[in-house]
């Protein structure tokens, strides 16, 4: 894919980064980063989670200022103080997480910050026609007058790109744009990007998905632990080699060895429907069962009902029809607390929102969710001594890297926070565990540790419902794989047989409903 258009040597590079260093309290996010990005190319940056990619891009976009180093755009030295400076220099950024105001319209989101109009009055009509034209010429069609909250992920992604194009950016930064897209949508996006490249745009592209990177990039820079470790040509490197550059070691694989599935059903979800407020049901007639010793994986594009499924099982979301059984007992009407007490463990998808009290100590986080059970509880009291002791055990057994158990949770890195959560949820001796994105944002060492813990528990008879966006993880860990699409279970697959491509087909609805 390295069809680099011939550029005369006189054209300066679009971006040059020279010795960029950025320190955060306790972390050096970027250290002496150097790279050169050719104008009119797609340049990929790869690296593990936390390697410092987003930080580097935020620096390039003026959102953060480097402690050291120089930035040159089209050969000229620049010092951005705010994103407006970067925008003025022709740089646009699509962030890793959507940066959209839900209660504003698409139009308002797009024009925000560089609004057309005379005398401060917004020229809505002008903006609308410009957005429509822009959308048509780049194949990014969205209705400018809809509220963003009514849009799906794909549309939101398009709005984000339109935002950048609208500002006349010639250098586009895309920070993990494909994380929430299904393969088909990724293909559409790539078509757009190639189109842009042909029109002379420079694209900086960040992704963890190495196949994608190899298919789109003209050049690749690898970042490890905040510093540039290699610049490679996609034509002369394999995904495996790339990965080893990123990690600095062999890749682990989430392969499940032998089956431990029993015939004892632990969790039984029967015909669950959640209507929600707007027309389309959030979940319709979802049926699935998880056996002791079994890992059931749920594949699906974000926003297709996974969150609702988890919340229904945890008792956080009321549902309109159906039943849920835990073992023999009907838990449909049970409170979250009672479900947890009955042996449901929960590794939430967003650990900062649902899993931790960031401003509380580790041992208090150990109590969280277990406040009614031993060892955290003694009558009406919180058993501090026992909780602390058990926290020490978790820190030891799960290799949580922390100065101590009185440290506040926010001081830990994401991976260590995740290990603490996994340790906590396992220590309640659960019968059934919801593991939602258990290794998201976690470095590779911690990743394989968490996988090991899941496997061990599975061997011990734990029933696991695994939700993940990482298809390799899903295929590797699951005994059974369901695909959720538009709130329905559209397929049940054997992870031993399925390919990522086929999975993607079901996930996007490209392949029609089927039960195997």
């Amino acid at each position, binding site marked *: 894919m390295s069809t680099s258009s011939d550029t005369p040597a006189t054209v300066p590079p679009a971006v040059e980064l020279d010795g960029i260093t950025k320190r955060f*309290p*306790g*972390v050096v996010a970027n250290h002496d980063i150097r790279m050169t990005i050719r104008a009119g190319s797609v340049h990929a940056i790869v690296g593990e989670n936390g390697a410092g990619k987003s930080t580097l891009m935020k620096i390039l976009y003026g959102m953060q200022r480097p402690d050291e180093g120089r930035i040159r755009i089209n050969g000229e030295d620049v010092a951005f103080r705010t994103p407006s400076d970067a925008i003025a220099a022709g740089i646009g950024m699509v962030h890793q997480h959507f940066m959209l105001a839900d209660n504003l319209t698409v139009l308002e989101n797009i024009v925000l910050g560089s609004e057309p109009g005379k005398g401060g009055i917004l020229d809505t009509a002008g903006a609308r026609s410009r957005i429509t034209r822009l959308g048509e010429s780049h194949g990014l069609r969205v209705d400018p007058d809809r509220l963003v909250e009514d849009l799906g992920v794909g549309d939101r992604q398009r709005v984000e790109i339109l935002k950048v194009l609208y500002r006349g950016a010639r250098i586009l930064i895309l920070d993990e744009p494909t994380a929430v897209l299904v393969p088909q949508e990724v293909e559409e996006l790539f078509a757009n990007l190639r189109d842009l490249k042909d029109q002379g745009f420079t694209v900086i592209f960040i992704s963890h998905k190495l196949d994608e990177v190899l298919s789109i990039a003209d050049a690749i820079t690898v970042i490890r632990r905040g510093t540039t470790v290699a610049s490679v040509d996609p034509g002369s490197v394999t995904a495996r080699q790339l990965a080893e550059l990123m990690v600095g070691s062999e890749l682990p694989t989430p392969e499940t060895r032998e089956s431990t599935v029993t015939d004892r059903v632990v969790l039984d979800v029967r015909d669950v429907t959640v209507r929600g407020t707007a027309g389309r049901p959030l979940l319709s007639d979802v049926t699935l069962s998880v056996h002791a010793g079994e890992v059931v994986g749920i594949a699906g594009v974000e926003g297709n009902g996974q969150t609702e499924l988890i919340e229904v099982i*945890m008792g*956080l979301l009321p549902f309109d029809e159906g039943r849920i059984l835990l073992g023999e007992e009907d838990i449909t009407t049970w*409170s*979250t*607390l*009672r*479900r*947890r*007490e009955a042996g449901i463990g*929960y590794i*939430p998808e967003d650990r900062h*929102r*649902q*899993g*931790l*009290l*960031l*401003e*509380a100590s580790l041992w*208090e986080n150990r*109590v*969280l*969710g277990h*406040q*009614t059970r031993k060892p955290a*509880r003694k009558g*009406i*009291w*919180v058993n*501090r001594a026992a909780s602390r002791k058990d926290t020490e055990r978790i820190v030891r057994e799960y*290799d949580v*890297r*922390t*100065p*101590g158990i*009185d*440290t*506040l949770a*926010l*001081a*830990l890195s994401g991976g260590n926070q995740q290990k603490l959560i996994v340790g906590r949820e396992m220590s309640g001796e659960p019968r059934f565990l919801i593991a939602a994105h258990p290794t998201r944002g976690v470095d590779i060492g911690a990743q394989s540790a968490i996988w090991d813990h899941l496997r061990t528990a599975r061997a011990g008879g734990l029933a696991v419902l695994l939700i993940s966006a990482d298809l390799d993880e899903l295929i590797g860990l699951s005994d059974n794989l369901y695909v959720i699409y538009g709130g329905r279970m559209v397929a049940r697959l054997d992870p031993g047989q399925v390919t990522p491509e086929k999975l993607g087909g079901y996930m996007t609805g490209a392949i029609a409903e089927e039960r195997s």
Partner: protein
Amino acid sequence: MMPAGLQRTLLTLAGAAVAVLLAVAVSSVAILAAGASPVTALEAMFDFGDTQNQVVNAIAFILNRAVPLFIAGLAVAIGFRMNLFNIGVEGQYRLAAIVAAFVGSQFVLPAPIQLTVIVVVAMLVGGLYALIPAVLKVTRGVNEVIATIMLNYIATNIAAFLVRGPFTGERAAGQLTISTPELPESAWFPNLNFLFEMFGLPAPRSGLWGFLAVAVLLGVVVWVVLERTRFGFEVKASGLSASAALASGVNPKRMVISAMVLSGAVAGLIGLPEILGRTHSYGSNFTAGLGFLGIAVALLGRNKPVGIAVAALLFGFLDRAAAPLQFADIPPSVVAIIQGTIVLMVVIANEITNRMSLRHEERRAARQLAATPSQAKTEVAA
């Protein structure tokens, strides 16, 4: 190395001290602008009088003033700890005070029973009145700040109606204040003057209100409940992260209701020190506004009982200065300015020190971990 908790505490204290100093500086400017000397003002504030009597009176005044403020601060803090803004303490204590004063005047029982009944009635009324915004929030999603503000007005009017109508008591000829019937002596809370007499000091004129003991006890109970019990943990968790608490099985509706009712029940006690210790009835002179001051006291005390006690004493100390300042020909509203600026400065200082200590914590963790990975690696290798 210092334990993390201690370090955080020290930083907080330092921040508070700086804030108080800054507030004093700001007020000094105001005093100078008023054409007086800040030094004179400071002297006046710390001038407790020349005689033992005066000093004892001053101390008793400060304590007597601090008691209701402390209780008010506790009431507010219970809600604040879980980001529940009970602005309605004002209405809750007023209504509780009048009902308790009236009920207490209707019968005569041995003092311990009589007092217990009054206290229980006050807590019940306060709690029930706080239940209204709690239920509205839980069932109808009504913002508790607005609901409690409205309920404050309503409580003021209901209290005015009651004291004038159904609950009114007899009055001496020529007395224009109206009040509920006077409490029987068994409902007069014994004072704590012996505390002074123990040290050979004269008893204060106003008497040291016995409710001080109840307040101290209440402070301990609230501390224990908030810091040591499962309920307290759930309050803290809800305050730090409502979503995490929910996912952990904490029932937010139950928490809102119980925290609000507890807050209201404590609020119900705010009026009792005055009623049981001094006026022996609820009258039209009843001290209003303690609920709002309670918010300030709770903020100063960072929603922790010990801090609230310190803040209440500080406010009591400043309020006492109103008279000596006038003796020194300085406008007494300097006190209000000092109180206002202290609150503002302290909340800002809290914010800064909090951020500093969090950042420090992160850095410390990173530093310590930077030292350990080699060990961890070797362990793995071994």
